[in-house]
């Protein structure tokens, strides 16, 4: 796949943040900064990690690209394919299921006209299922970027979808800011 929207490189402010993060680990252990830096890179690359983006992260940390790929492919928060502007992640594990997560997911599917893992043709929304978000007391729960939306009903889901559609919601913001 062509990397249509790959960051050239971080701007000065982001580089500064990355360097601050690297300093949290002992000298020679800059690889430890990989997960935090991948979070930032993904946010700056429209919510996914292209090969070019991962190569850039490898060069920043002085590690081999394969060390980045093998990590990026392990963790579920990293997207290795393009996603929509707003990624909606619906928890489907036991406690959320006990409180109507299945119906909620079906509602999102119907409203957006897509199945989990798909993106709307206009590129606005991607729907995903995720496993336990550790907010079970307020089930059902969804995550959008760094936001949790809890005790969700189909009615509240509609309100959120209307709002996000109107404001062209982008869920890919630098999580440190």
């Amino acid at each position: 796949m062509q990397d249509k929207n790959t960051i050239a490189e971080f701007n000065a402010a982001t580089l500064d943040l990355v360097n601050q993060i690297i300093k949290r680990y002992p000298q020679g252990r800059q690889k430890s900064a990989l997960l935090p830096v991948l979070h930032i890179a993904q946010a700056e690359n429209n919510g996914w990690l292209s090969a070019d983006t991962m190569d850039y992260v490898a060069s920043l940390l002085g590690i081999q690209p394969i060390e980045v790929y093998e990590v990026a492919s392990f963790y579920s928060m990293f997207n290795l394919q393009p996603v929509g502007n707003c990624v909606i992640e619906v928890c489907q594990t036991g406690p959320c299921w006990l409180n109507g997560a299945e119906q909620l997911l079906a509602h999102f599917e119907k409203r957006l006209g897509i199945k989990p893992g798909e993106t709307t043709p206009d590129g606005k929304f991607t729907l995903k299922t995720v496993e336990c978000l550790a907010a079970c007391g307020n089930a059902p729960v969804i995550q959008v970027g760094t936001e949790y939306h809890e005790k969700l009903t189909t009615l509240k889901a509609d309100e959120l979808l209307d709002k996000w559609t109107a404001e062209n919601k982008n869920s890919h913001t630098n999580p440190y800011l």
Partner: protein
Amino acid sequence: MAKQILLKNIEVPGLAGFDVYRRLGGYSAVEKALKGYTPDQVTDEVKKSGLKGRGGAGFPAGMKWSFIDKKSDNPRYFVCNFDESEPGTFKDRHIGQLNPHQLIEGMILGSYALGANAAYIYIRGELFYVLNIIEKAINEAYKNGFLGENILGSGYSLNLYCHPGAGAYICGEETALLESLEGKRGNPRIKPPFPAIVGLYGCPTVVNNVETIAALPWIVNNGGEAYAAIGTGASTGTKLISACGHINKPGIYEIELGLPVEEFIYSDEYCGGIRNGNSLKAVVAGGSSVPILPADLILKTAKGEPRLMSYESLAEGGFQTGTMLGSGGFIVMDHTTCIVKNLLTFARFYRHESCGQCSPCREGTGWMEKILMRIEGGQGTMKDINLLTDIAKNIEGNTICPLGDAAAWPVASAIRHFREEFEEHVKLQKCPF
């Protein structure tokens, strides 16, 4: 009324800020320890307290600390396990979000006791908004001289950092967490060596859960014996129980260990009973990994004694008729719940979260999910039920880390206690719910 050790001030507005926390007596334990105690004295208090690891395994915290390799010339590390991901568990987020300084104060105390000059809080990546709250609190602690060089003129220095995960339940396993903190895939390590000898960057390391660490300020302030006086003797202190599912009042409750389960479920002070006046069907008492118990066995042991919220009472009867306190993730199901479908969501969870290193877990979790889908979807056979039990048996004890056991126990226990319901799915060739 429950002992309020962890949640005493949780509702005070502005508690996440340094000034409010300090005004309520915060950081007095750090002052007391750094000025009056040697590191070993802090460890002794924690040993005396009987505090057990609150992440789920329940290993005595003081004993874990005492394993740290003091002969090593390498630096030592103290790491907080904030990878809260066990289905049904949502207590640590509560502390991180509303009382981050309590966690930071505990981190300072633990680091001092262990002789660590650097400490990390490993927090699951989904909780970035909590990470940001904690980082803000860490900055305040630095500004006020509780972190950094020569804390309170004691000569002791500590740097504390947050580190985000990126979506992997397995990183709650302490050696996988350390791998992840080193920027690698979260593959658990073979033990021994244990982290206390070979941990982060090959250095002596202790990893403790958020709730365990948050209890340290109280223990230092009041003494280990005072903490041990709370609870049942075998289960000391208080525990956060995160209650969810079909109850009237889901939420996070601090209980004195030893509270009767029946009181916890039905009292208005806690869960407030089952929703819609429904009847209780089953409880998963300590996070999705622990054996499910039917209503009669969660309320009373097989001997007919009232079941208590304690390590020993919940375990009474072993896995035949008992369960575990685990993480305190208390999932309640009413009579409308399909046990098979609930189990299917757990099976999917473990298949998704298996790191793939060990064949029994990597393959077995996938098979269990598929067979459960078959049974729930009306295509199951009676043989499938025994096959599930077989697979669970073959995973249990045959993997590097406990994720295999965690995946096997829910399946084995659901069939043990609710076999008729599986059989009914097969007979009807559909889900009866």
